[in-house]
């Protein structure tokens, strides 16, 4: 537990000091939403909740990839990842700390992305956004779990940054579909029962990849 706290505190301290990940994630989310707004409806017609939800999840995926990659990249500087591997910290605790750090960076970026989505897609600031929060949180948690594991693998190989999206996006598709459907329904004011099954899929995805990441991280991060 002490190792988990030490690694998480260190990651948060580094981020508070430099803001590298959060700024990059927010900027990327902004860029993606701007591009999608113009690409989907350049003349400013009616923007529906489903389109807004889709745009938000595209921003979530790409921001998540940047966040997870950066969280692992900071460990590659000066060989710090080797120090962590040689230290007494449990590999599962190390995974949990890196995952939680990536999730926090992603959550901050997603909060900013939701605000931008409301502005760009002419939505209202009302209670529907509160219904969106747990859906986005589940998506961000699942994607952090998946991307942290994959970033540990891709960080070991040359051009691994390119490999991460190739691995992560196809694996995230089930959660992406569920997340977009649930978010669209939540934003359009549908009752909870109408999208409960999509939430269940998101929860299942999170459980699967949290467990997989916890069990496989030790092998993913070990050097040859």
């Amino acid at each position, binding site marked *: 537990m002490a*190792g988990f706290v030490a*690694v998480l505190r260190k990651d948060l301290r580094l981020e508070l*000091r430099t803001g590298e990940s959060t700024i990059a994630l927010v900027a990327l989310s902004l860029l993606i939403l701007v591009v999608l707004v113009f690409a989907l409806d350049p003349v400013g017609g009616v923007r529906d909740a489903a389109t807004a939800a889709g745009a938000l999840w595209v921003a979530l995926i790409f921001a998540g990839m940047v966040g997870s990659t950066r969280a692992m990249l900071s460990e590659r500087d*000066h*060989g710090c990842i*080797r120090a962590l591997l*040689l230290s*007494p*910290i449990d590999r599962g605790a190390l995974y949990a700390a890196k995952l939680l750090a990536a999730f926090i960076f992603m959550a901050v970026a997603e909060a900013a992305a939701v605000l931008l989505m409301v502005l760009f897609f002419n939505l209202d600031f009302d209670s529907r956004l509160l219904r969106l929060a747990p859906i986005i949180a589940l998506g961000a948690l699942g994607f952090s779990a998946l991307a942290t594991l994959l970033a540990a693998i891709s960080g070991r190989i040359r051009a691994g940054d390119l490999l991460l999206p190739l691995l992560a996006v196809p694996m995230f598709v089930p959660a992406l579909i569920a997340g977009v459907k649930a978010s669209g329904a939540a934003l359009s004011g549908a009752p909870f029962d109408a999208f409960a099954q999509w939430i269940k899929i998101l929860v299942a995805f999170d459980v699967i990849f949290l467990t997989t990441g916890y069990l496989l991280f030790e092998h993913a991060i070990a050097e040859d």
Partner: protein
Amino acid sequence: MMDAALIDARGLNKSFGTIPILRGIDLSVAPGVAAMIIGRNGAGKSTLIRLLAGLSAPTTGEAMLFGASSRTLDAASRRRFAIVTHQSFLYPNLTARENLQFYGDLYGVPDSLNAVPKWIERVGLAFAADTRVRTFSRGMEQRLTLARAMMTRPDVLLMDEPFAALDADGVALVASLLREAIARRCAVVLTAHQPVAIDGLKFDLYEIVRGRLLDTSREPLAASFRAQQTG
């Protein structure tokens, strides 16, 4: 009766592709013993340290620390072991104090709040305790690396060219840290380009030549090293 070796390599071979780097390395280091391994650039010194630490898997053979494979050490054994390599393992955007505090927390160093300033003072970096490591010179970074490794009071210490980038004071610092470590029966393996003499310390001297480890108590040093020692 001799103490059991804390560092033990048996028949270590390492190849990268078809290129052999280390061939049949046998090395045993007991508590309170320091082994110095010398060799030219590319001789395989750093690879040997990585294998002993478990950072890299041998092609064949076995590297053991505390009687267990160094690739599968448990947390308790990892807590008793420290390494100094060409990479500092320091976070450039953390200060010297924050870096040591992080490693102190990670290793569960007792009373780390007091131990950290003591070690910063010990390695002569009190003036830069709250400066980010990214502004440090190579020598300052090496001093902080030594503090990072020694503050955990390891029972096994692996050092890859610890004298690199250090001035005369820095070399004296390494010497005093090594003396203390040996005095509390730490097993040490360190590498260097050429033999280094330290007052009050006697090393078991080995030389790596073309991937083979030669015990200089039984086999003579290469001519160039012999000249440096006698010169």
